[in-house]
């Protein structure tokens, strides 16, 4: 099974719909320990991406268009990190019409690494990084769309659960120290929402 530019166009459309629907929920979650803009960030970013013209023959350049969309319309941490992750995927897929599903895990890992470099963050600090890290591991060597979907869902839920009782160590939420204990990291939650949207 492969992933090509048309898949990416479809995925973008779904992500735009899912994040538009979840906008208020995500804003509210981000507002508990931050500035309450995460819903806007995602909805605006994916809407912009959805309205952009994606190339059909170069998956790398297609990822780059998505990255640029986030660079244009969002300056909040998550938008910039997503743009960074998408750029890493762009680099990895550059010049290819499609990739194998087995390569998805590698793209996730590449995104994770680029985002760690960009945000000077580490694993274990209760952020989107931990979700990506777990996802990369959970999807390693899987070749079927359904398999990947199932593994990803389980992995995200487990990661959320595993970090819930830990304090935030990155971003705005870090300032709140122990007040963040018991609350899901909004950036992790956003991945769950995007994943659900992709599979809807």
């Amino acid at each position, binding site marked *: 099974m492969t992933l090509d530019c048309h898949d990416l166009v479809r995925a973008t459309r779904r992500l735009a719909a899912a994040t538009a629907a979840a906008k208020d929920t995500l804003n509210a979650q981000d507002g508990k320990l931050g500035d309450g803009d995460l819903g806007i960030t995602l909805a605006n970013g994916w809407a912009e991406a959805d309205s952009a013209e994606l190339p059909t023959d170069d998956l790398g350049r297609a990822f780059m268009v998505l990255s640029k969309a986030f660079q244009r319309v969002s300056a*909040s941490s998550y938008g910039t990190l997503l743009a960074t992750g998408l750029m890493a995927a762009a680099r990895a897929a550059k010049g290819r019409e499609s990739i194998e599903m087995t390569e998805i895990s590698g793209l996730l890992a590449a995104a994770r690494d680029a985002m760690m470099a960009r945000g000077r963050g580490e694993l274990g600090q209760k952020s989107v990084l931990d979700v990506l890290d777990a996802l990369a591991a959970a999807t390693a060597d899987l070749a079927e769309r359904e398999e990947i979907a199932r593994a990803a869902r389980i992995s995200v839920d487990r990661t959320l659960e595993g970090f819930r009782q830990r304090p935030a160590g990155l971003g705005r939420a870090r300032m709140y120290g122990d007040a963040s204990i018991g609350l899901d990291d909004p950036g992790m939650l956003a991945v769950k929402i995007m994943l659900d949207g992709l599979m809807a």
Partner: protein
Amino acid sequence: MKKILNDPTDFVDEMLDGLIAAHPDAYSLPHPRVVARPGGAKEGKVGIVSGGGSGHLPVFAGYVGHGLLDAVAVGDVFASPSADQMADCMRVAHGGAGVLRLYGNYGGDVMNFDMAGETVEFEDDIESTTVLLADDVVSAPPEEAAKRRGTGGMVYAFKIAGACAEAMGDLAHVTGIAQRTADNCRSIGMALTPCTVPQAGKPTFMIGEDEMEMGMGLHGEPGIWRDTLKPADAITDEMMDRLLADMPLKHGDRCSIMVNSLGATPPEELYIMYRRAKDRLDGDGVVISMPLIGRYATSMEMTGATITLCKLDDELENLLRKPCHCAFWVQHDLT
């Protein structure tokens, strides 16, 4: 929300419209949300750019001017500009001699400026460097000084590096001077009342009628302790103690000191604080050069003050005392 504004979503753009309409000789808007000196980049001069959230005037846009910054990227209130805007900002400031990115150490700003730097390096062959201000001593312990956030020290860095660039120093020299200024600045703040971000519509934090928060950040980030309001001299002493513990100054050392209002605190109160701070430094035999008292780095209508110490050597002092000119700060040559 007791603010004079129209639609909160237009706050920043209408503010910029007014700023440029009022001072067309000082500021231009070559791209949306990018404020630059009119007339474009000067051939052969190092460009200095900055940027960050709105709501801090004169920081950032206000400090575009002669002997100061060349261009800034303007974000929403208390929010980073986008990487795209920052890249435009660097292109505008580039006069062929490279660009210094000089701004405060806030996560979002850093990520976006880094991304912008990579973009203009790749797409426009612009050589660039970064100096981050991390002068707020409360925001991390000395061992993690690089994690500290930037505040009043930015103003010293803009002024000193700006004078160096105006004297046609090269990118390495301007960057070195900016870094030395950043290394020599220490700041601390205290807040009495919050401000309101227009699009949020509610105060950034809650605080009791007779409480103050020592060490609070420019956006309401928590400080060291919250206590009942103390007399001005006690507040100033505590702030000076923390600053001098972090960067001891000895007899004969020279420094500038900024007593800065977060917005609502009037100059009358700043002078009362300065009076005490100067007594302290005088007592230690530290020589004050060009103190800055006023509104240099604000948080809209927040009540409170910050104190910044900037330790000076001959070169930094000379650059600090050079002339500068923007709508918020006109200084004659004091060298």
